């Protein structure tokens, strides 16, 4: 397969998944894994896991795993093609839906829907934090770091950057 063919494949595969990514890229991760590893055999399961770990280490939204898969398959261009394919269609849909929602500004229906969605969003944010904590907290020290960071963000206005940096510094000693 030429690079151009590969880029076209990536664009096609990821853009068709974009509109079903309700809940973000994590929702389509199993499907991406199935396509990339099982169906197409573009990389091994171990390579995929390594890319996932790397994506976790990087800044940016969790869509980064998509960019890394594209990078592995077709270099820097592949990374951007994969990212745009995975996030483009959903972003356009979001834009169009928002234009419509925005016009309902005075509608009591919109107020009701928004009030219903807010606590749901908070519950899901809590769930994603919990899922990450289960993966990261493999020692009492790590649990303590998670607890301290939780309290710092919930009850103080400290910059999260210092919390992360301090945790990394404490971690170097093998605490976590």
């Amino acid at each position, binding site marked *: 397969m030429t690079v151009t063919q590969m880029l076209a494949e990536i664009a096609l595969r990821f853009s068709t998944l974009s509109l079903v990514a309700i809940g973000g890229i994590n929702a389509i991760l199993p499907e991406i894994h199935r396509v990339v590893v099982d169906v197409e055999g573009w990389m091994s399961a171990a390579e995929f896991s390594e890319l996932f770990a790397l994506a976790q280490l990087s*800044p940016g939204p969790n869509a980064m795993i998509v960019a890394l898969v594209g990078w592995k398959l077709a270099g820097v261009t592949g990374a951007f093609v994969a990212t745009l394919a995975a996030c483009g269609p959903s972003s356009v849909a979001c834009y169009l839906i928002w234009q419509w929602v925005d016009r309902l500004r005075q509608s009591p229906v919109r107020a009701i*829907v928004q009030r219903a969605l807010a606590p749901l969003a908070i519950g899901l944010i809590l769930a994603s934090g919990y899922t990450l904590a289960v993966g990261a907290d493999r020692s009492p020290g790590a649990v303590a770091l998670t607890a301290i960071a939780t309290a710092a963000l919930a009850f103080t206005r400290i910059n999260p950057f210092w919390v992360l940096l301090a945790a990394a510094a404490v971690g170097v000693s093998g605490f976590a």
Partner: protein
Amino acid sequence: MTPIDPDHSPLAVISRATLFTSFLKMGLLGFGGVLPWARRVIVDERKWLDDRAFAELIGLCQVLPGPNVVNLAVIIGSRAHGPLGSVIAVSGILLVPVALMLVIASGYASVAHAVAVRNAIAGASAAAAGLILGTAVRLLLHTRPPPRGLVIGGTAFVTVGVLQWPLLWVLVVLVAVGIAAEWRAGSPAQ
């Protein structure tokens, strides 16, 4: 819900440069999750939205396809500068971090097995989970949902977080139940 009102909204007067740098900041600092940074920059630093409006908007972003913070960039960007605003905000939060990540990925192999690096990452990962948990607690304290909201949010947490049920089905059920409960609770007067 006044913060989304166009005539008085601080979102309507964001410059393009501020839009880009704000979302860039969220993207670049969002190690282990962008959401804590999104809330901090949008609510605390720029005061574009209050906690309640932020929670409501992120709720919408959550049920639409695509990463919630990218959807947030699309919406806030469009509020400020139409389609171009969306492109500016998404570039900041997504495309620049991709470029940075490729640099990190290129250098990663050479340091991946150093014990100090692995330990530092373990510490930061544990804290990153806490940043997200703390953001949720903060939103909870500042928006004070009624008991029906706590039930919906609590159910979402237990089913998706603890039980790891598929998100799509949980959303279908909880969105419907949540809207029905709000509807029954009556008028939008808050």
